[in-house]
């Protein structure tokens, strides 16, 4: 019985840590924008990294994906989907970006 409430508390703490971490990263994201404006690449790079960090926090604390042996298959699937996504997204940007330069669409 005691073991059970202990487990419950530990798992609840996991969710609260995930929430607190995500909240902090969100506040940082909007705080950086508010403080420094959104015009420069450096600011956007910071925002992108904060977004990536939040994705990882939520995957670990909310979706319980980690490198434990038993959740490997889920992680493999995420990694494979990420590979597919990278090919699709980078390929699209490459080809359409190239097209737009050749068509002088950036002159508009």
């Amino acid at each position: 019985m005691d073991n059970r409430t202990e487990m419950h508390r530990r798992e609840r703490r996991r969710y609260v840590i995930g929430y607190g971490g995500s909240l902090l990263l969100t506040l940082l994201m909007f705080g950086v924008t508010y403080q420094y404006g959104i015009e420069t690449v450096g600011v956007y790079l910071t925002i992108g990294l904060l977004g990536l960090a939040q994705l990882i926090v939520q995957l670990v604390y909310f979706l319980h994906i980690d490198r434990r042996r038993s959740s490997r298959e889920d992680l493999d699937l995420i990694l494979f989907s990420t590979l597919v996504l990278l090919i699709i997204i980078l390929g699209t940007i490459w080809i359409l970006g190239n097209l737009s330069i050749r068509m002088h669409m950036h002159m508009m």
Partner: protein
Amino acid sequence: MKRAPTHSYPGINLGHRHASADKAAEVVTFGFWVFLMSDLVYFGLMFAIYITMIDAQAGGPGPHDLFDLKSVFAQTLILLTSSLTVGLAMLALKYNQPRARIVLWFGVTLLLGLSFLALEIRDFMAMAEKGGIPQRSGFLSAFFGLVPLHGLHVAAGCLWLIVMGIQLRVMGMTDLVISRVVRLALFWHFLDLIWIGIITIVYFGGLTYG
């Protein structure tokens, strides 16, 4: 002492207290995870189109004219909090707390989901008033192809929450209902992941490069 809990599918695992439901959930939850990943690829395509369309404003209103970061901030906090309340509902389920408590957390989640949608629709209306309608430019078509697609997912999640609330009351805690609830929680957390992509790429990216 430090025995790691068994973990057989993504999301919270129910463990030995719901042994039969846990076993039943294993295969279907993995199948649902495969669906979510293919949904992710679909969203990825929409993101790719948006990125290539950022400059294609055709003289129409752009991100600086249309985006309301305060509202986006509020929506982010609401969706993040709803991800926590779904997690708390799952803990209530896992640790055999009264069914009313699970339904209560689902109710809170539903309210948060609906207020998210209300804010989002208000934003779309404000954009339309400034001339930001899907047919105005490639940029706006891409925007309205992506962000409302996420909103549609949230709306489907709200409907799912209502249905599960009813099933929990009427059918009780059967293995089937429990396994559906597990998948609903997974779906809801997934929506928050997509939203992080949307604020990072659509809103901040749009304001930086648009």
